[in-house]
Structures are given as structure tokens and as C-alpha cells.
């Protein structure tokens, strides 16, 4: 299963579903992480975690642990 956490900077993935629950799931949905949305891995923080991704025209930072809960469709897309 490929998740957002597997993307390298510059790679784009398409969100398939999210496995988070409760407040985190709600927050993901509110921030526009919904099925079919393309998400680009933008950069990784200096200490390796969290990561910054770009979707729907804005940048979002989340921890790797949270990025693992965002499952992507198979196949990669280069920028």
C-alpha cells in the first residue's frame, strides 16, 4: 500500500482514501484531502520530519506518522 509518506520531493500522488479516525480524519477532510485530489510532496523539514505537501493551491505541513494515513492510488507522477 502506497501512502503519502512514500513520496519523494517533487513527486505527485493521487489520494485514494484515508485511514485516520476521529479528529485527524475530520481535519484531513476539512483541509481538502479527499478522494482523487493530486498531492505533491514539496519538501522535508531539516530534521527529516514533518513534511510539506502541496494540494489545491496551498501548502500543508503534516507529520510522517499522519502522512502514512493518506493512502494513494498506485503509480507515480513526475512533476
Amino acid at each position, binding site marked *: 500500500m502506497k501512502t503519502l509518506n512514500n513520496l519523494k520531493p517533487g513527486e505527485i500522488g493521487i489520494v485514494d482514501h484515508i485511514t485516520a479516525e476521529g479528529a485527524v480524519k475530520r481535519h484531513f477532510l*476539512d483541509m481538502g484531502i479527499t478522494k482523487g485530489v493530486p498531492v505533491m510532496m514539496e519538501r522535508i523539514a531539516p530534521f527529516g520530519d514533518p513534511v510539506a505537501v502541496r494540494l489545491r*493551491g496551498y501548502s500543508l505541513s503534516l507529520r510522517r506518522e499522519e502522512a502514512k494515513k493518506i493512502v494513494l492510488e498506485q503509480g507515480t507522477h513526475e512533476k
Partner: protein
Amino acid sequence: MKNKTLAIIGNPNSGKTTLFNRLTGSNQHVGNWPGVTVDRKTGHICHRGTSLDIVDLPGIYSLSPYTQEEIIAREYVLSEELDGILNIVDAANIERNLYLTLQLIALGLPMVVALGFMDDVRAQGIEIDCNKLSEQLGVPVIPISAKRGENIGQLLDTLAGEMRAPKRQPAYLHGVSAAIHRAADLIAPLGLRCVSLPFYAAKLLEGDQALWEQMEKLGMPQSMRGELHAVADAMHSHSNTTDNEMVLADAMYDYIEEIVRASYQKPRSPKLTITERIDRVALHRVWALPIFAFFMFLMFWSTFGPIGSALGDGMSYLIQNLLSPAVRGALTAAGAQSWLIGLLCDGVIGGVGGVLSFLPQIVILFFFLSVLEDTGYLARVAFIMDTLLRRIGLSGKSFVPMLMGFGCTTPAVMAARTMENDADRRMTIMLTPFMSCGAKLPVYALVAGALFKQHQGLVIVSLYVLGILVGVLAGFILKKTVFRDVSSGFVLELPTYRMPSFKGTVLNMWQKAKDFITKAGTIIFLMSVVIWLMQNFTLTLDVAKSSAESILGVVGTAIAPIFSPLGFGHWQESVALLTGLVAKEAVVSTMSVLYGAAGDSAVLAGLLGTVFTPLSGYSFLVFTLLYMPCMSAFATIKREMGGWRWAFGAAAFQTTLAYLVALLIYQVGSLLL
């Protein structure tokens, strides 16, 4: 004259505050939402014969009931007070902003959308057809630039005029709209606000716990509950998930994408935005840290370095050396009693002066915080530091308060306001006092200088490190006890970099300063009077002839045995620690008086050498480092935590920890040495 109450609602970083300032000018009132420490700002304007009260709701991404801000906003928009909504939408970030707009439309209240940052969008070569957007949303859309004042007049006309409810509800695909409609019909008999039924219906279908409980209280019959569940089940039958929260969010975002496709024209060759270009450097894997360190140094140095301390010293000089003698002279001339002169000059003016001497530092700190936040760099600070701080159960946003704690706990605790997550904020406030503040340094210098001579520097450094280590330990303890159930996620927007507005920054500084003087100042004032009385009167309320027979001396003598296991059981040290509650540096002056050194530091150092062993001296310093902060910080903690229970809890926690650590060091040290 017509009277209307409007709420201004928008995402964080959508330019909401700038628009609010633009609309209401300085005609604002800052209060608190009941029971929480989130600012409640209201402004008042009169426009074309209509009196408008505008409430600035906290920035939110959605009307979900999770964060404190969301709960406040949701309760307010569902209340009866409100006549209409002004929704500000960031044109440069339109997709995600419209998600909140759709939820607001479901409330059915009269509403206007202000499309902000239009100048930024045009600069990127993007064109937005506002008429088309307005047509599709069913509410008026007014393009504005709050910073340059573009179209503000037109916006005011619309707000003061006949505001209308949305023309229609959005048509979501896959049976979602039909399901909302059916659910709204079902719950209609419960007596909820009729126009807002689509909102209630959608949230119930999502399984919103808070609303289901509310329906229960309104006496929702069992049959209605069953029918609602049937509608909810039917809704997700069209999709490949059984999760209605996802079904609804998908439907709403699909709808937004459709709207945006129709009214939003992207440039043929998109340029890299300024934000993306800045972040290439500011968040670079190598350069991010030095740049970050530079800004933090600049902020710390300006606040506590020459500028801040000169202003602070100037302020206390004005009060202690000019105002106080003047008042003393006037009172003496008027033949006032000496105790009254003492109370007014030493107690009242001294106490108030203590408060005011913090003011320059608070103003400077809030200048930097305001700029950091408004430019968007504060979110990047959190991004850079998160990994280090989450190990002790905090998040990246705790970094700035913690750093400022090395200067002064009072403004540092106020800096924690920038944190959205309430548990993180409370924990940061409780841990900040462990970062050794500047006022403790004179105490270290005196005692370490007297007892450790060559190794003085090393001893002082060890105290700073110990403070951080105990802070880490305390973080673990709190995470395992008080804040057990809190899993603070870190899903944080890295907003577009923007130039902060001068007016907004000044307004913010002024409000924080006023807040500090009125709220914390009152408590500090009362406490200084009480402590002055305790210092100067005996238990029988006669004027005390020596410090030993004053109430403070008696209390100090009574509690002195408690400190014997820590190695310092003389009453003088206990009294010094008690006066340290006024200000930590007072520990030095009190000891000087009590040991009869009359302000001569060389004499005092010599005397301390006979009173303390190096070990008991170190134990005394450790206790000074860790025990409850001074009353100014204490009052600020009370104010920011929103209750005496929290403030006393934090003080008890810090003092207990101080006692245990000092005990451990003294007892283990005694065995080893």
C-alpha cells in the same frame, strides 16, 4: 436607526483581521469568549443609517466541533443573535476557502462573500469571474483588497443594505443533496432554526456527535432517529465507502472544483509564486536552520537585550526615582502617617512600577510575534522545530514561548497564545517557567560567585541545562497524567507569505499591552500590597521593627524546617525565597538585608560562604531555578489559563518538582561527597 449584528468568518490567514480592522478602524472592543481564552473582538460602525455590530469570529477551516475556535464559531452562528454573515475568502486559495463557504450557505442566513487578496491573484495572472461565482454560489461575491481599501465602500453598502439569504442550496451529486433534503424534512418538527435545517441535516448525516446529543436533548423520537439512519445508509450506497463524513466532504469538494473550473482562469504558463520562491531558501534543508536561528536571535536580543532592558530600566527609573520620591515628598509635607507613605510609595507604586517595567519588553515581543505570525513565518518555525519538541509531548509552535522563557516568563506565557491547540498551549505555559528567566541570573551569580569561585560559569550553565532537563521530565509527567488523552496532531497550513500591515501590527501591540496592564496588573497590584503589609507588620498588626518579627519573617521561620532536608534551613533563606515571589532578583536584596550586609555584595558573598556549603548552596540555587515563578508570571498564567485552579495547580506542580529535585541533589550529594 436599523441595528444589525454581523459575524465575519473565514479561514485562518484569509486576511480576516485586516478586513476587520479596515471596516471598524480602531473602534474595537477586545473581550473573551465565555470560559475560554480566545479573544472575542467586536467592532461598531454606522453606515448609511444602519448601525452595524461586527463580531470577528476566530479563523476556522470548517464548522466541525473539534478545536476550541470551531466550537466557538459554530455555537455563535447557530445562536439567535446573528443577523448575517460576512465570509472572507482568500482568492489565491479559493478551493479550500470555499469549503467553509458551502457550510455557511447551509446555515441559510443572509450572507455576503468578500473575495480578498484580489491584487495578489491578478499579479499571478489569474482571472476570477466574480459574477459567475456569485451566480453559482447564490450569494453576492465582492472582490476586495483589504490592504489597499479596494471596494470596501461597496462591501459596506451591501452589508448595510438589504442582505439576503442564499438563493439556493448547492446541488451535490450522487444523491447527497437529496439525502440532506430528506433529513432536513425529517428533523423539521424539532423546532430548530428553520433556515439552518440543511446545516443540521448534513451534520447529522455525517454522524456529528455533538449535534446528535443536542437532538437527544430536544427530544428526538426513536422513530425519527431510525429514519435518519436509513437516509444516511442510503446516501453512502452510491459510493464505495460507508463513511458518510468522507462522502459529504468528497461531494462538497467535487462541487467546489466544478465552480472553480467555471469561474477561475489560470494563466497559460504559471509562474512560481513568491511564497514558493521564499520557501526554497527559508525551508531549505541546509539553510533553514541558520536563517531560523538568526531570526530567533534577533527577536530575543531585541526584547531582552540592550533595547528592551534599557526601556524597562528607564520605566522603573521614572517610577522608583522620580514618581515615588515626589509622592513621598508630597505626602510628608501633607503630614501623612509614615505607614501610609510606605504603603503608597513602596507597596502600591513599587508594585505598579514592577508591572510597568515589563511593559516595554511585552510590547517589543508582541511586535515580533505579530510580524512573525502575519508574515507567515511562525508556521514555518513550527515546521522546522516540530520534531525536536514533540519528543517531550509539545509541538513546533511551543518553540517561541519556550525560547522567550529564558528572557522573562511573563511575556513568554503570553506568547503561547499563538498556539491553536488548547492542551499544547496549557502544557507550554506550565513548562515555560522551567526555562531559567533573566531575573534568576543575579541570584546564581551571587551564590555561585561566593561558593564556587573558579567554576562559577560552569555552575551557572549547569543550572540552565538542569532547567531544560526538568522541563523535559515535567513534559513527560504531564503527558502521562493531566494531558493523557490528547493526541495533538500536527496538520498545519504553511500560509502564503504576506507583508504585515503597519496598522494591524500597532493595533495588536496596543491591545496586548492594554490587556496585560488591566488584567495581570490588577492581580500584581493586589499581591504587592499584601506582600508589603506582610513585610512591614507583625502578626498583631503593629509596625514591625525588624524583618524577623514581620509576618513574612514569622512565616519564613515557620516554614524554614521544611527546607532543612534540602540543606538550607535558616529562616533568612526562606524569607528570601518568599520575597522572590515578588521578583526573583529580590532574593539577592533580601538576603543582603537579612544577613546585615547592607547592600555590600563583597561582604554578603563572604557571609554566604559561612552559611552555605557548596552543596547546600547548589541545592538552594536549584530550588530558586525551579520553584513557582514570580507573581507577575503567576498572574499572567492565571489570566492565560483562565482560572485560579490552573494557576495554583501549575505553581504547586512547579514547587513540588523544585523541592524533589533539590532534595535529590542534596541527599545524593551528601552521600557521595
